[in-house]
């Protein structure tokens, strides 16, 4: 091993290197923090998939004698590409859940007039559940959501469980998929105020555009895509998180730099000797950069392992039994990690390289 190599320095200064590695390791903490925030996406993922396939149309109060609504529904019925299921204006909110971040989030809900309608939609959506015992007054949720709300099959779900519920339901089936949405069967009457529309040929933006074209300027309200709504609602939270990452990174950078500074000040004469021996400024900068990058690399490798193990343990021992989940990876976590790591490393590499390349043995 060459005496000027970064490996040599770290191998022979394990204690000092370990301290810097330990401090750099905290930049991985920002990765986990990002994963925590973006865990929200995981909860909504399956719900968004369902929402992509079913569009809710609403009657508007300004629609005189429901003419526009009825006309649009008739056109949809006549369209071989589309299916339509009607429901009354009476709705029931979805069961809220406790997120990984600790606060409660409300969920989407679907209300069907009969078990047959619900079974038809489940088959279309590809959801798996034992629906043999469902009837009027049944509520069906995902297994994870049931765990999250500590509900078991046969439990009564009413206003004491979810404040917004105006009647009681019984939990009669559980969905295998990690779907945080609530399905009710409630015969609320025959008047048509809302309608679910779905298609075997289209989904998402394509289905929405197709229906929007069909509705044209008529007084019928079509719900926005859940994905678009979430983007609008959650993006500001992500920006706050990124701003927080920058702030924490600056604090971390100052802390790490002060420790690293102390170590390099003690080594100033060493670099002064290298300069006297004829090593160029560039070679000194490459040496300090190599040392810091290698320590950073070790910190990241260990950090990724520790982050994965921590996430695994948190999920297996705490979150999954509670119907919650912490993702192992997220784009936001990656962005937060890069912000933290670059904020710490770039100024450190530049300042240490410049300082040590100016070390002068004649000044000791």
């Amino acid at each position, binding site marked *: 091993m060459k005496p000027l190599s970064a490996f040599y320095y770290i191998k022979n*200064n394990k204690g000092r290197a370990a301290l810097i590695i330990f401090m750099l390791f905290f930049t991985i903490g920002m990765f986990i923090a990002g994963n925590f925030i973006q865990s929200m996406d995981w909860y909504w993922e399956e719900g968004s998939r369902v929402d992509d396939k079913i569009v809710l149309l609403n009657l508007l109060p300004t629609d005189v004698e429901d003419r526009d609504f009825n006309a649009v529904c008739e056109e949809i019925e006549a369209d071989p590409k589309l299916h339509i299921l009607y429901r009354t204006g009476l709705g029931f909110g979805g069961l809220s859940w406790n997120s990984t971040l600790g606060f409660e989030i409300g969920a989407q809900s679907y209300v069907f007039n009969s078990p047959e309608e619900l079974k038809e939609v489940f088959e279309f959506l590809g959801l798996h559940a034992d629906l043999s015992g469902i009837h009027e007054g049944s509520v069906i949720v995902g297994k994870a959501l049931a765990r999250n709300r500590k509900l078991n099959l046969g439990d009564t779900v009413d206003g004491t469980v979810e404040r917004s519920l105006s009647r009681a339901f019984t939990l009669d089936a559980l969905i295998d998929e990690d779907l945080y949405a609530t399905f009710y069967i409630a015969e609320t009457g025959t008047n048509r105020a809302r309608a679910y529309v779905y298609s075997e040929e289209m989904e998402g933006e394509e289905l929405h555009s197709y229906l929007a074209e069909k509705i044209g300027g008529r007084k019928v309200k079509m719900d926005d895509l859940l994905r678009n709504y979430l983007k609008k609602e959650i993006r500001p939270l992500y920006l706050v998180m990124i701003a927080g990452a920058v702030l924490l990174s600056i604090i971390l950078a100052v802390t790490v730099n002060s420790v690293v500074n102390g170590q390099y000040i003690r080594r100033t004469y060493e670099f002064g*000797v290298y300069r006297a021996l004829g090593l*160029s400024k560039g070679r000194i900068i490459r040496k300090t950069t190599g040392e810091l990058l290698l320590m950073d690399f070790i910190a990241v490798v260990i950090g990724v392992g520790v982050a994965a193990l921590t996430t695994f343990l948190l999920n297996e021992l705490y979150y999954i039994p509670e119907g919650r989940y912490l993702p192992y990876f997220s784009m936001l976590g990656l962005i937060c990690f890069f912000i933290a790591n670059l904020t710490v490393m770039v100024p450190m590499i530049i300042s240490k390289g410049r300082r040590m390349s100016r070390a002068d*043995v004649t000044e000791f």
Partner: protein
Amino acid sequence: MFEIKNISMIYDSDTDEKMYALGGFDLSLPDTGLVGIIGPSGSGKSTLMYCISTLKKPTEGSVLYNGAEVTESSDHEREELRRKEFGFVFQKHYLVPYMTALDNVLVAATGRGKETEERAKNFLKKLGLSEREFGKRPAKLSGGQCQRVAIARAMINDPKVIFADEPTASLDHENAFNVMKILKEYSKDRLVLVVTHDRSILSDVDLTVEMWDGMVSKVS
């Protein structure tokens, strides 16, 4: 080998209270031999050595090495000179504490590979270190052994000039005598400049440059 012309070094040259470390003088140094630069603390002897060895740039004047002006040469040229033609021994040996004795020598080597390693080992052996001591760090070596490692580091590239700044200052009499013996031996076909305030170690020098208050007071 060295032609020093009208050399002066002023610290705080921008302020009114100018401090002359070197007051402007000429000096010629031979191609070979042991040259002692002696003077009391603050006389400018170390500053003169730093200027000759390109570690410092004089405020005025010039230093010619083998006829070439080195004071105006580029950083890269001066680095090359220090790496290939000069060797340094410092007062406190300045070995890298986390490197072994052998690696402290190899760190200065311009060559690579087994051959250079063997060469470094031979130097250390010649200077009285046993193989067992090659793998020891400076903290595990005595002051005399450390200084010998520093001398081996200075000699590894077979430099034409060795600059030694108070090389015996932290050594006992016996070790000081041994170090001077090694340097004397090397100076047979090379130039060795020794800066010291201790006249007793200069009994064997070929040329003595005495300094006083930033000026050369006597060359003998």
